[in-house]
């Protein structure tokens, strides 16, 4: 449990740490270091200074009292109370730390003191010194804070005891002043550090932000941005690496574009040659072979009429039917190769003709809908492409789909021609077809034709749920093929 807890806490910490930007991180580091150092030093100095000053205060208290006791001896012995009073006043005046000074005689009567009118009686019993002792000093708790009270016997106790109280106010003030100065210094250094960090992080992050901006441009396909190398450091190296990368990407993209262009030219050339060849063969079949067969039919009709022999007539009749059937086959073949309707009557008529032939030929129930394509004709290559796409699609349906009905929709929507062929057949597994062009040669041809004209093919199919082909062809935009084929 705890292992998980600490892990998630660490993750949360990382999330927080990771979510702030570099500027905040650097500022945080600078501020953290300065504050840590400043506060540690301040604390250490404060503690040490307080210790040293307290030690000094204690020593000063004892030495002041010893001095006072020595100088008070004769004054007490000759009963010079005024001199004693003056001595105490001078002792207090010459040392700011002295809060009070007084002298008691051997009977513990106060001989002189610095309190003015009256004397705090509780102080009298608070400290004393044995006659033979050097001194007796202790901290007293008073209403004015701690007082270091030293008692020193005067003339070995025979003339009384001198008492001096040292206040730690001055010491505390000194410690607080030094602490204040150190804290102020910390604040100033923090401010300088923050300014420096801001300038540094600005200088440091600017190339990175430039890099981010350039990378976003590259992500959107613009390979033109190049970065300036601001500094001769790792970030500078990164900028150069980025520039090298975008240059390489640009070259690669250019090469790919050239290759695509070449391939499109090649494919387009093949398709054009194929169409031309088909058109020639269709014409040959129609004009040459068709005419010969027509002449043959006319000859056979004449032969049938000229003969009276029933056997000859019957045989001639069979031959004429066979020739008529062949003529029909040749004509179908020519239409399939290149429907003259496409050139002469336009795309809708050619498609209607082809669909009608498919209904007759394959027995499919085809529903054809054509919208907006009757007003004006499209360019030859687009009409050919759409015709071939429909032809290919319907051939696929007839061969593989085992469908009972097919919807064919041709529609012009603005600048786009849309071709939809939907069947209720067995469908196909699209994933299984990836990478196996031989299995989907027909679909490959459809995609190739669409893309050559800047269009797009979308296939939706699942096994058992039919197949839908959506083809979108732009009508106005510059197609790849129109670029290539003048």
């Amino acid at each position, binding site marked *: 449990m705890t292992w998980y807890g600490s892990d998630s806490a660490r993750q949360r910490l990382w999330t927080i740490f990771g979510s702030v930007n570099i500027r905040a991180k650097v500022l945080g580091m600078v501020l953290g270091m300065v504050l840590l150092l400043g506060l540690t030093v301040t604390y250490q100095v404060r503690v040490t200074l307080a210790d040293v000053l307290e030690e000094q205060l204690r020593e000063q208290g004892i030495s002041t009292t010893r001095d006072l006791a020595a100088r008070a001896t004769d004054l007490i012995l000759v009963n010079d109370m005024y001199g004693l009073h003056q001595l105490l006043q001078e002792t207090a005046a010459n040392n700011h730390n002295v809060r009070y000074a007084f002298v008691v005689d051997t009977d513990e009567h*106060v001989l002189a003191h610095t309190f003015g009118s009256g004397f705090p009686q509780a102080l009298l019993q608070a400290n004393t010194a044995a006659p033979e002792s050097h001194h007796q000093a202790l901290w007293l*708790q*008073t*209403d004015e804070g701690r007082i270091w009270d030293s008692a020193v016997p005067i003339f070995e106790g025979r003339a009384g005891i001198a008492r001096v109280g040292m206040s730690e106010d001055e010491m505390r003030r000194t410690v607080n002043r030094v602490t204040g100065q150190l804290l102020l210094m910390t604040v100033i250094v923090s401010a300088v550090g923050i300014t420096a960090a801001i300038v540094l992080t600005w200088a440091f992050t600017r190339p990175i932000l430039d890099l981010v901006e350039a990378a976003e441009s590259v992500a959107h396909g613009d390979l033109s941005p190049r970065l300036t190398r601001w500094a001769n450091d790792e970030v500078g190296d990164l900028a150069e690496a980025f520039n090298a990368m975008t240059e390489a990407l640009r070259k690669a993209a250019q090469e790919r574009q050239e290759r695509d262009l070449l391939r499109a030219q090649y494919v387009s050339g093949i398709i054009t040659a194929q169409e031309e060849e088909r058109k020639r063969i269709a014409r040959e079949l129609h004009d040459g072979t068709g005419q010969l067969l027509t002449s043959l039919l006319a000859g056979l009709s004449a032969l049938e009429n000229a003969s009276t022999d029933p056997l000859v007539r019957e045989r001639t009749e069979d031959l004429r039917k066979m020739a008529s059937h062949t003529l029909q086959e040749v004509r179908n073949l020519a239409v399939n190769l290149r429907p003259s309707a496409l050139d002469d009557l336009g795309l809708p008529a050619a498609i209607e003709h082809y669909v009608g032939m498919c209904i007759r030929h394959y027995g499919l129930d085809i529903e054809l809908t054509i919208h907006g394509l009757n007003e004006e004709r499209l360019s030859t290559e687009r009409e050919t492409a759409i015709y071939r796409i429909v032809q290919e699609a319907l051939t696929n349906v007839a061969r593989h789909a085992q469908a009972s009905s097919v919807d064919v929709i041709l529609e012009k929507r603005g600048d786009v021609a849309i071709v939809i062929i939907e069947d209720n057949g067995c469908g196909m597994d699209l994933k299984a077809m990836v990478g196996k062009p031989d299995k989907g040669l027909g679909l490959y041809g459809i995609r190739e034709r669409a893309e050559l004209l800047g269009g797009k093919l979308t296939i939706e199919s699942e096994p058992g749920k039919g197949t839908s082909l959506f083809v979108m062809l732009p009508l106005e935009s510059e197609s790849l093929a129109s670029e290539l084929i003048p």
Partner: protein
Amino acid sequence: MTLSARLMGFVMVCLTLLLFGCSPQSAPAAIQLSELQPLPPTSETGITPLRVAIAAVLSPQGTVESYQPLLDYMSAQLNRPIELVQRRTYEEINALIEQGMVDVAFVCTGAYVAGSRDFGMELLVGPQVNGESVYYSYLIVPASSPAAGLADLQGKTFAFTDPMSMTGYFYPSFLVHELGYDTRSFFARTFFTYSHDKAISAVASGIADGAAVDSLVYDAAVAQNPELARQTRIVHQSPPFGIPPVVVNPATRPQIKAELQRLLLDLANTPEGREVLKPIGFERFVTLQDSDYDSVRQVMSTIPTDYNILEASR
């Protein structure tokens, strides 16, 4: 239970006692420094102490150290507390005697002569040293000094003891007068030390180029600290003068006077008495006559009154 375990237990008990026994005491209530109360008047003890004044022949501390055994002995004998009274100058002591503020006083010769003249200060007893009740004034100079007499100290710094001292002031003034000079201009600088031991120290340490001191004090000081004999040199010794006496106010009750006189005179007859006389350097106390001080009066009378501070001040 093994021995070590038992020892361990003992140590634990000791530690516990130590820890809880020495737990920090609750802080005493804070002393209110701002709560000032009038000091109670010095309460007098029931018995009036015998007030003994001792003139500052020695420094106040030296006086206490030397006279304390004697005072303690007197207190025990009289069954009465004794209060030692010291003042910086001889004149203050004389004033205390005159006003009856002290019962008995050890004064200097010069002060006695002045006191007997001014208010009839009475002799009680006098000490005897080396079988005589006289003393001298020594003129001393630092051991390194080339001076051979007072004449060589002209234009130098001179330390007087007290304006009322016979040996420390009147006698050197008398000598200067005899040389034909004025005391005020003979020396470059003079100062008063108000005790003879301080005057000796002033010469020994070279602060003063010369001083005139009580022979009794000087001999005692040299006996106690032979170093002083090497640091100072006696260049002149005066004729004998009457020794500093013990005196009383003329109004002191005869009963007390007699009791004190008997006590002091009897000191040398008991071992304890002889013991307390030792620190002062006296052999015994003897009775003296006022005429013993006539030679002193003679010297004092020759000094012109205008720089005889004592005479001038009156």
